[in-house]
């Protein structure tokens, strides 16, 4: 049999397995991105809490300690491969806890995405004009009120493209979690290929499914972006696919 015939055979026999794997991949990527976003939001909010001379010594010291911990989290996660993180977290902690592999995978992705999101959200906050903060403070809003009512709505809108990008990256990068035996797309492909010792055809199917997923989702996200785009919008670059990228304000918005 040639490669095409093998592809047909493997797919016709394992198509429901492939679909199951695709489902798990999507679940992991979607929940991981959503939870990761919430983690990133929380980290970014805490990091931007301002300190003044009026704050108590206790508050200032605890804030410093928390900042150090959060910075370490972001740096360590961003500076090591997710594969290594997954192996350490899974075999180091979750196996002994008897954690369901899918749950453990979602935790790993969320934890990983959170570090990237923290930087993305921080970039989004920085990108909001300083006058917006002053306009809110001058009217009597405290830090929390300013963040939730004025800054974050604008910051989040600005980083929508980057959040979508993280989702697409997670669809692809969750493939490394096959090492901890999650029945996601990659793992299924390995199994199906192994059954006939025909890995290339199986991985070709796998690649095609990934491509269909990322292609469709990218288009959908772009449509959503267009819908949300108002008179003034700009994009923050800087994401997992390009970790060293500076957070750049591509299109400056007008003053409000």
């Amino acid at each position, binding site marked *: 049999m040639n490669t095409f015939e093998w592809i047909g055979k493997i797919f016709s026999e394992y198509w429901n397995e492939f679909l199951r794997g695709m489902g798990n991949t999507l679940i992991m990527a979607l929940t991981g991105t959503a939870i990761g976003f919430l983690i990133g939001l929380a980290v970014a909010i805490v990091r931007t809490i301002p300190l003044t001379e009026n704050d108590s010594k206790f508050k200032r010291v605890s804030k410093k300690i928390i900042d150090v911990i959060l910075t370490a989290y972001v740096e360590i996660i961003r500076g090591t491969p997710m594969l290594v993180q997954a192996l350490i977290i899974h075999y180091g902690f979750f196996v002994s806890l008897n954690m369901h592999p899918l749950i453990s995978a979602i935790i790993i992705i969320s934890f990983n995405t959170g570090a990237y999101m923290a930087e993305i959200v921080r970039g989004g906050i920085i990108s909001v004009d300083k006058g*917006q903060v*002053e*306009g*809110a*403070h001058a009217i*009597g809003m405290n830090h929390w009120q300013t963040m939730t*009512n*004025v800054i974050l709505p604008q910051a989040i809108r600005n980083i929508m493209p980057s959040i979508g990008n993280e989702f697409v990256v997670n669809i692809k990068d969750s493939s490394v979690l096959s090492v901890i035996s999650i029945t996601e797309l990659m793992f299924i492909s390995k199994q199906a290929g192994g059954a006939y010792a025909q890995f290339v055809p199986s991985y070709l199917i796998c690649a095609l499914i990934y491509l269909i997923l990322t292609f469709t989702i990218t288009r959908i996200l772009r449509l959503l972006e267009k819908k949300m785009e108002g008179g*003034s919008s700009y994009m923050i670059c800087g994401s997992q696919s390009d970790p060293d990228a500076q957070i750049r304000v591509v299109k400056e918005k007008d003053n*409000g």
Partner: protein
Amino acid sequence: MAETILELKHLAKSFGENKVLKDISLTVEKGEVISIIGSSGSGKSTMLRCVNLLERPTGGEILFKGENILEKKFNLNAYRTKVGMVFQSFNLYNNMTAFENCVKPQMIVLKRSRKEAEEIARNFIEKVGMSAYINAKPSQLSGGQKQRIAIARTLSMNPEVILFDEPTSALDPEMVGEVLQVMKDLASTGLTMLVVTHEMGFAKNVSSRVVFMDEGVIAEEGTPETVLVNPQNQRTKEFLSKVL
């Protein structure tokens, strides 16, 4: 009888080595409209921003109705609702409509009900002649329109004092008039106003007192006639000869 509402006592502010405000003392009576003039870099904005505590003074005192606003336990956010600020760059919240800009802060800071806040906002938006643009986003408004909404937003908090930092400097010339007219109307309602301005017409005809600042100190102050028509200080004369 005149009632003192704000008092700056030996106010000083440095940014690092740069002493921007050296020793500013100023007493503001309720209902006064004070124009603050002076050349660029003389510290006018810094003084105003200290009064609102967007900048923390490095020396001296600021008293609001006799209470020191620099005290640790002073309720800064409540104070800021009573001493509003209007910026040169408007600073409308870009994620809200003109109407929401005026409604939301009342609900968030003053805990007013939406119904009450909307009623108050509508009233002030009408006063500044912006009722037709109530649902516009800031990006859809001209500079003059933005500034009028910014003024309505500040008024909606029912402040006792409003600080204006060059409210017309970022506007195209044909829009300056509409904003100045709103401010003139406000002045006649008895609101206390501190206005940093380059509009000598406003300083002369609307304000009750003019303060001339030079290199971090108040070089001269008095009625518009004395300061603008018969200045005593050499620096005031030089400044006026340049701007008039």
